[in-house]
């Protein structure tokens, strides 16, 4: 009984992964369907990138402030307060910035995307695309996947920069640590491999977030609910699944790269 249930979960998961992969491949393959690709890229860059800028900056500065504060007190216990720059920069670059930035973007851009596609599904706009001979996946999802490939890494890099500035603010300005030592430690600590890991994670998280949220919104009519309820289910599933996927992928990438 238990084995059968586990087997069903496993086969369902593999089938869902297959459907998601096919969905993304169709979106990429038909990205030019309906024309106006450059303007769709620009519009989605604004929607996913520019609109998320404030929340990314706010979360980054507070993350840096807390890291600076906690780092100062923890490192002082071991007489290693000069390592604050190393702690803040490596924590942000290798782990916190990609994960937190992706989760924040899943919360803002991902939910907006799932809700928009869910409404387009329930108001038959997606059916209208199909009847016009335009691939709805290519037209609506393809450009967003492309935009995710560069917006998530850019916003993650910004998160790191704002975060280390937050660490400087709490560690050096408020707690009077040596600022030169702080920046020198960062300069020494960050290696190209750390930046590579940061950007790779951001890229993977970006594609996962946009793909999962799009998939849920696009197929909201299959959620077992109808109308407004189907949109809310799609939105919740989109953000929950993408958050879980981000954390799971984070572990896998970290384990692979270490």
């Amino acid at each position, binding site marked *: 009984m238990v084995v059968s249930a586990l087997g069903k979960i496993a086969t369902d998961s593999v089938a869902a992964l297959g459907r998601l992969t096919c969905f993304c491949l169709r979106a990429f393959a038909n990205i030019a*369907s*309906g*024309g*106006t690709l450059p303007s769709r890229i620009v519009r989605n860059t604004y929607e996913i990138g520019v609109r998320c800028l404030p929340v990314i900056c706010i979360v980054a500065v507070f993350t840096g402030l807390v890291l600076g504060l906690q780092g100062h007190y923890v490192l002082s216990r071991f007489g290693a307060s000069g390592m604050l720059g190393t702690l803040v920069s490596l924590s942000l670059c290798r782990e916190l910035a990609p994960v937190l930035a992706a989760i924040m973007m899943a919360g803002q851009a991902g939910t907006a995307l799932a809700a*928009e596609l869910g*409404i*387009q599904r329930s*108001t*038959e*706009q997606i*059916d*209208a695309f*199909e*009847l*016009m*001979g*335009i691939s709805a996946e290519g037209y609506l999802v393809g450009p967003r996947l492309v935009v995710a490939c560069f917006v998530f890494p850019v916003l993650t890099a910004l998160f790191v920069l704002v975060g280390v500035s937050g660490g400087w603010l709490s560690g050096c300005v408020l707690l009077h640590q040596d600022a030169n030592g702080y920046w020198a430690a960062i300069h020494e600590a960050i290696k190209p491999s750390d930046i590579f890991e940061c950007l790779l994670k951001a890229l993977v998280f970006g594609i996962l977030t946009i793909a999962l949220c799009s998939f849920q919104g696009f197929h909201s009519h299959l959620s077992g609910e109808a109308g407004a309820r189907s949109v809310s289910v799609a939105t919740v599933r989109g953000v929950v699944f993408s958050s879980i996927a981000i954390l799971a992928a984070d572990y896998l990438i970290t384990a692979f790269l270490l």
Partner: protein
Amino acid sequence: MIEVPLANPPTETVTPLLEVRLLRKGFGSKQVLRDVNFTVPRGGIVSILGRSGTGKSVLLRCIVGLHDADSGDIFFHGINVSEPGQRIQLRNASSYVFQHNALFDSATVLENMLLPLQAQGILPAEQQRDKAMELLRRMELEDASNRFPAELSGGMQKRLAVARALVTDPKVVFFDEPTAGLDPIRRNAVFEMIARLQKERGFTAVVVTHDVQEAIIVSSKIVWLDEGYVLFTGSAQEFASHPEPKFSQFRDNLEALRQSLR
């Protein structure tokens, strides 16, 4: 009552423009369409009538391929478009006006008009724009070309939905309850618009509606759907004088209301 002349009588041809044969469709245990058969002649307006929940919209969605029928065939110009790979023949030659318009809310009025032309990819960009603007002008929507659908009134949205359906010069246009939720004046205006455009542009219109009186006036053929079966196909005149109680109930619904209140 709306004042439009009867639609062009359908042209008699050996092969009908559209033919539905033994179409069946169910959802779970509920059978919605049961061996539906009817033909749509070239030209004119064919109205599909029936009570709510009898499968009229499902029938239309099966014809255009938004639902996959469980069995049966659909022929367009004699080609079986229900076969894999052939559906494109009907899609390329048809348009669909959705019940709630299905306008792209993130696109402007002009962009809504341009999308079908861009998908068609026949005309150069400049001509696409000219053609879209010309149709918007004729539908009195020219001034709204840069507005978004949400900024338009209900009547303007309906006109835009019809304009978008006609911009590619389709041979057949499917209207799914085009007057649902409209007041009698707007309802008449929509039927008048469909009849006028059909005469001017010569397409074949297939209209799913509840509005029996209006359908009798503008249609060249009536198909009555009841519990998933086709109960009647024939001319509007034949339908208007048919003694079947189910039809007369619909035709004389005001009298029925008066009777029931006595």
